[in-house]
């Protein structure tokens, strides 16, 4: 708890000195433009540096010069989300009601229920929203609907919930159209930009895998003779290449790979890479096959993990991928390693 309080201090609250007063309510004002510090913070999040405490204090904020008739937008207290919302509101006078989602974005928090009916109800009360605005309407992000029951909010607080667009960029058009959204505004997408977004964090997380692979490959290249370096290089390059393909190439290529299961899509990529590596590093057929058996499951596994970042997978399908995929992945990995060990033993014996 102490930690999170400290992080609020280093977050936005300290900068909210301007205040908008409506009746006896004093609402901190926020700007629709980001400071250099905000932008730097966003870049750090992308690369997984010091993500702790990247949150905004929950409560009510003012953008522009809102009055009792201005719209109220509800969002999460993940600072990146909050920043996107206030930026999108440039030129609009509005209130932002920030829920305490423990620094998690709207969709993930709604799935967990922290962006939920109880928190929204409590936050409406604690901020005294009823005395700030004269109307009884709220705009929620559509993806928050997973956690909030609109009819319960209406019954408990008298506020009517409007689910706005999926993407905050559409908010101006949505408000201008009298809180009407086009079918396109209601559809979640998984465009190239969305698919690429988590690659940097995944790269920074891959270090333990890289170390483990390097260690395994050096063992599989023994003994220390003049050819050790050549053997080590071809093995480690093939295996690390399979990891790189899974982390960097899989997300952009996802829609163009055959099969619906992510692990199967990943296996295809892994296979293509293994074939390329075999000819690139001029390896013998037995070594190539063993290496492929060990490398393909790496790509397949990383691809399977990517289900969590996608916007269209369901739990039942993902469960099938795990229960059928993991045994195949493990068996293939084991066969590959056994093949590589056997090759070493045989060649040492014959020599």
């Amino acid at each position, binding site marked *: 708890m102490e930690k999170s309080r400290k992080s609020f201090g280093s977050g936005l609250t300290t900068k909210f000195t301007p205040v908008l007063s409506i009746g006896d309510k004093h609402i901190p004002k926020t700007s629709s433009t980001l400071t250099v510090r905000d932008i730097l913070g966003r870049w750090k*999040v992308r690369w*997984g540096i010091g*993500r*702790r*405490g990247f949150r905004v204090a929950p409560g009510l904020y003012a953008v522009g010069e809102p009055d009792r008739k201005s719209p109220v937008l509800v969002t999460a207290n*993940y600072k990146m989300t909050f920043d996107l919302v206030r930026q999108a509101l440039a030129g609009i006078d509005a209130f932002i009601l920030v829920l305490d989602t*423990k*620094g*998690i*974005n*709207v*969709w*993930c928090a709604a*799935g*967990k229920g922290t962006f939920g009916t109880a928190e929204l109800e409590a936050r409406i009360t604690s901020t005294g929203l009823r005395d700030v605005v004269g109307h009884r309407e709220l705009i929620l*992000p*559509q*993806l928050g*609907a*997973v*956690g909030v*029951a*609109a*009819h319960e909010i209406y019954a408990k607080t008298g506020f009517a919930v409007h*689910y706005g667009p*999926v*993407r905050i960029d559409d908010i101006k058009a949505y408000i201008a159209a009298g809180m009407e959204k086009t*079918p396109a505004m*209601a*559809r*979640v997408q*998984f465009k190239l*930009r*969305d*698919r690429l*977004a*988590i690659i940097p*964090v995944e790269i*920074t997380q891959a270090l333990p895998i890289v170390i483990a692979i390097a260690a395994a490959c050096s063992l599989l290249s023994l003994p220390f003779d003049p050819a050790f370096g050549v053997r080590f290089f071809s093995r480690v390059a093939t295996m690390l290449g399979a990891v790189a393909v899974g982390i960097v190439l899989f997300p952009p290529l*996802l*829609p163009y790979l055959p099969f*619906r*299961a*992510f692990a199967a899509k990943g296996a295809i990529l892994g296979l293509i890479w293994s074939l390329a590596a075999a000819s690139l590093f001029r390896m013998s057929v037995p070594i190539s096959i063993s290496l492929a058996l060990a490398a393909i499951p790496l790509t397949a596994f990383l691809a399977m993990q990517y*289900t*969590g*970042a*996608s*916007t*269209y*997978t*369901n*739990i*039942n*399908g*993902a*469960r*099938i*991928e*795990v229960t059928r995929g993991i045994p195949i992945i493990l068996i293939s990995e084991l066969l590959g390693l056994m093949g590589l060990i056997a090759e070493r033993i045989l060649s040492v014996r014959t020599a």
Partner: protein
Amino acid sequence: MELRYFSAGKSLALDTGSCIGCGRCVEVCPHAVFSINDRLAAIEVRDRCMECGACGRNCPTGAITVKSGVGCAFAIINGMVSGKEPSCDCDGPESPRKNRKACC
């Protein structure tokens, strides 16, 4: 290009008998699974449903039921290892898997 997953929308069920045609399901579904025809909801494209549960939670008459959950292999493996319900580890302050969905 429209992305589709397998085993989609298996648990989604609509009881037209208790539907009042309010349109809330159309408003909340991120994959346009529902449509309103003759003032009643209909499941238009089940194959797009990711079982997020938004429609079920927001249907005022309880006409929709859906078994919702996260379509995330990591969460499922987590659940198997810990013996609990599948859960992302995105709560943890240090978790690298926090806020993975880029769209929101």
